[in-house]
């Protein structure tokens, strides 16, 4: 944009012989500066993350020493999730069979379907999810599966230690799966 020339036109008449100094305008075109200012503002707005860390709550049960103090759950409403390594999830409903025929494998994507169908099949007060993380699974897996409880609005769930039998089953089925991939 052109600048306004204020120096032109009818300057003061100085005495004869005095050279007329050219008057320079003091006005500066501020348009580029405004551009820069807004550019910086947009930059700051876009790079600032507003997200604050959130927290998910977990209430731990008090360890019950006596067996009669422990919570009881109806067998038909129980589903047990076992977390293995490499984001594997295994599950069974009710009690584990001797032959482990109801032991099924799944993953973090499909487990939602399993939980939803279980939720629809069982009355709300009987539904209990037992989560048993194995030593191989990661913290992320545990948080994800707890999150799955919130996502599917399951009120009763428990974090329980894995038993030896189950740990072996998990390890075995993981081996089998690995072997199947190789062949």
């Amino acid at each position, binding site marked *: 944009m052109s600048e*306004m020339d204020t120096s032109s036109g009818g300057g003061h008449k100085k005495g004869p012989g005095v050279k007329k100094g050219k008057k320079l305008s003091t006005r500066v*075109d*501020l348009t580029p500066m405004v551009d820069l*200012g807004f550019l910086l503002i947009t930059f700051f707005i876009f790079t600032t993350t507003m997200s604050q860390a959130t*927290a998910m709550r977990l209430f731990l049960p008090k*360890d019950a020493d006596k067996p009669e103090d422990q919570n009881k759950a109806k067998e038909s409403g129980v589903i047990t999730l076992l977390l293995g390594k490499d984001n594997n999830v295994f599950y069974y409903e009710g009690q584990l069979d001797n032959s482990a025929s109801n032991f099924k494998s799944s993953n973090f994507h499909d487990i939602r379907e399993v939980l939803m169908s279980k939720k629809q099949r069982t009355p709300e007060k009987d539904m209990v999810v037992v989560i048993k993380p194995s030593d*191989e699974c990661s913290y992320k897996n545990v948080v994800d599966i707890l999150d799955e409880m919130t996502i599917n609005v399951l009120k009763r769930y428990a974090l329980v230690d894995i038993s030896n039998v189950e740990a072996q089953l998990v390890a075995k089925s993981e081996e089998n799966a690995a072997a199947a991939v190789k062949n």
Partner: protein
Amino acid sequence: MGRAKLPRKSTVIDMTAMCDVAFLLLSFFILTTKFKPSEAIAVTTPKSVAAKVAPTKDIVMIILDKDGKVFLTMDDESVKEVMANTLNSTKNLGLNVNAFKKAQFFGAPFGQLASFLALPEDQRKGNLNPGIPVKDSSNNELVAWMSLVANAYQGKKPNLLLKGDNLAKYPAFKSVIDAFKKNDFLKFQMVTNPESAPVGTDLWKQSQSGEKRED
């Protein structure tokens, strides 16, 4: 003929006012932006649908890094002072109370705590530190730490936070939980990054129908 001559107006606008506004906004944004305090221990937290914002006051945070090392941070300096004095009198560690108060985090077994505190703050970079030993369930030092915290808070409940790395293994997480349980800290919160509820799930339906959720 009868048309009135419109005076020609200059198209140049004075930009000074706009410039003022732009830089005023800019300085406002710069001054109000709080920088994330650089963390001594690098942790990538998992995502969850939890919507509650993590508390920032009165916190006792346990950090679980990707190798399963455990660190403790707290923000209340008066509580830390009490803890340092208790440690000095009960375990005879000879800790520098002032350094203990100012320390950003604790990540050493009790035996090495004095030398840990003797290091300058900028050399205590997280991943080089040994961390609080928790692996061995018979010698879980976090249990002692948590009972110290419980005593120092004297019945008041601090906000107990657990900030774990995605890659941390479950046994480390379990020993932290055990330490909480043994000291009757039955409520704690896990720091996560927010994520929205997946479409089609029950939680999503709840939030669509405007139901309030209980976290």
